[in-house]
């Protein structure tokens, strides 16, 4: 109500501008990653992603066959075209790997041992050497290459880097770890919301307290426990761990929602002879769908994105890596400089959560609000 009585706020344009600024600031990093994931790996290191719609100056190397040497006075000369019949436009060139772009097209570059090299824009070159030419000389040149967008990075990461296995592993961890806690928590939440018994308040307080227990505490004792009962580091272990860790939030969210359901419906069902079990399955559970959905989204995002629990409770061999572990422990080390691969890997791992996020945002927001605003 900043503009009641028809006085339009003079700050309106400033507000619009600052929101645009913030949104752009928030989006730029992700957009950069998305653009980079489609770019050719050599182009990524040749120019920033913000220049990706434009041609990129890239360096190439051409071998000149030493066979066609012509003698010109005391010089041995090779002439030809570095594109060998193809099209192209040389920007700069050079004769040594250490300094591949020493001269601009059209100039003559002085090389070591009194040799000279001239390359024209269209690729015609003259190579002169005072000594006899024994090995095929190399010409280095840079040329503007058009933007190169492709799915190559995705193909590489998915099919030759086992990211597909990691994707399936993530899915495998996520599905049971999302569904099972919902069911267990729903029953408990119903009992805490609509059944009268001694110690109910204490249990609710306990759930609230457990909401903030740091996961770190659970790692060592539970891994020992899992080893002792023979589960060890396995998918079964991580499902159980995620179920346990997700329960406080699930119970808390669901109880808060169920308490708000109209008392009349539940009481009239009981008067009509419904048991608690029937009231729960036939009335409370269907009515609580929005809360169930919000928790399901939370738990899904949390298990999908989790690194800590996966590192501790899953075996550390590459067949059981989930995507987060694969990126953090494998790709960042072995592929640290390969930005295209890293970007596409990151996008594969965040694609599913983003889809879930944008399609189910309503439930997510509702869940957040139920959890913290009274």
């Amino acid at each position, binding site marked *: 109500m900043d503009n009641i009585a028809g006085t339009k706020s003079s700050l309106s344009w400033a507000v619009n501008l600052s929101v645009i600024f913030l949104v752009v600031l928030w989006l730029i990093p992700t957009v950069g990653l998305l653009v980079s994931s489609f770019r050719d790996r050599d182009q990524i290191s040749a120019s920033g992603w913000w220049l990706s719609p434009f041609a990129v100056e890239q360096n190439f190397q051409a071998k000149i066959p030493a066979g066609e040497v012509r003698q010109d006075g005391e010089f041995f000369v090779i002439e030809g075209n570095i594109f060998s019949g193809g099209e192209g436009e040389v920007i700069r060139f050079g004769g040594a790997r250490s300094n591949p772009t020493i001269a601009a097209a059209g100039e003559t570059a002085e090389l070591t041992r009194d040799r000279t090299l001239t390359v024209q824009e269209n690729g015609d070159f003259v190579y002169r050497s005072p000594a006899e030419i024994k090995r095929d000389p190399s010409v280095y040149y840079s040329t503007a290459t058009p933007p190169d967008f492709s799915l190559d990075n995705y193909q590489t990461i998915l099919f030759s880097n086992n990211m597909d296995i990691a994707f399936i592993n993530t899915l495998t961890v996520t599905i049971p770890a999302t569904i099972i806690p919902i069911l267990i928590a729903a029953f408990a939440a119903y009992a805490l919301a609509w059944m009268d018994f001694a110690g109910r308040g204490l249990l609710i307080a306990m759930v609230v*307290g457990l909401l903030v227990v740091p996961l770190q505490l659970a790692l060592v004792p539970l891994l020992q*426990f899992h080893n002792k009962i023979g589960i060890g580091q396995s998918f079964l272990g991580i499902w*159980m761990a995620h179920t346990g860790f997700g329960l406080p939030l699930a119970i808390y969210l669901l109880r808060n929602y169920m308490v708000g359901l109209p008392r009349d419906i539940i009481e009239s069902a009981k008067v009509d002879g419904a048991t608690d079990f029937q009231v729960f399955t036939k009335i409370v559970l269907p009515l609580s769908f929005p809360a169930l959905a919000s928790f399901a989204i939370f738990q899904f995002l949390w298990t999908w994105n989790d690194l800590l629990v996966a590192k501790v409770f899953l075996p550390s061999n590459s067949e059981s890596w989930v995507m987060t572990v694969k990126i953090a422990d494998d790709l960042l080390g072995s592929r640290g400089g390969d930005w295209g691969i890293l970007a596409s890997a990151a996008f594969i791992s965040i694609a599913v959560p983003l889809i879930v996020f944008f399609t189910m945002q309503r439930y997510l927001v509702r869940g957040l609000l139920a959890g913290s605003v009274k």
Partner: protein
Amino acid sequence: MSPLLQGIITVIVGVGGCVGYFFLSNLILDKVIFPPRADNPGQNINRANLVRPWLFLFPAMAALGLYLVYPVVGSFYRSLYNRSGDEFIGFGNYTTMFADDGFQIAFFNNMLWVLVVPAAATFLGLLVAQLTDRLKWGNIAKSLIFMPMAISFVGASLIWKFVYANNADIGLINAIRDFFGASEPLDVLQVRFWNNFFLMFILVWIQTGFAMVILSAALRGIPEETIEAAIIDGANPFQVFFKIKVPQIMGTIVVVWTTITILVLKVFDIVYTMTGGNFGTDILPSYMMSYMFRDDGRATAVAFIIMIVVLPVMIWNIRQARAEMR
């Protein structure tokens, strides 16, 4: 057997098991143990209803007890033993840890995170919530700023690794420095002390959306009369915001602040992915992970320190919850 198949079977077994447990246990309670048609049906129904809540609660309580209550005790117990776990050394792990430079750095950095991240995220969230409140395209803007919430900490770290890259052709930061004439690219993650803030910003980037969503709802919940009255009395927009709106949503601001504080104490992914705790960026959770699997005594001692730091918030939360229930 492929893990995915195993997963599907687990879902079926788990869901079937849960439903079966709840259904059968209720059935047995009603038909076998306390059938309402014996000599005194009324008493039997009452008895059944005394037991039933515990049937509903049992699986959840068992899981909570095993996975969250037991570890608090178990971790503390383990932290009193040496590396291999066979010798009781009292608070030995704690004393060696407190003397360790690495721990002091991690603890100091963690306090820095706790001070900066919740404050920055709450402030930015409040700013965005207020700015987008009356905007036509406010919902789109909010949705875009909220988006990083869906991205994993690892994914977010990778996203920002690009921004911070030590190369003016990849990293935006260095490209901007290059544009303003800096000759050499700078690895911002290796600049001592300030690199912590570059890491913190990643978490701020993620959490601002969370703060925004909640604070925006709180702003909407403010009674309009109070704002109208202030405007009629001649308050300017800044006065309306700071003197009328903020005091009324103070409770929610505190909740957001503490929620993010708790999160900050647990997140190890960002430091682990970006620097691995090098260059003086370690925080307690990542410090703990460097001892995990190597020295469980030390690792549990770190975990218990985190627990002690969290404890005041936990007690405060419980008191709030109890006050609300009355």
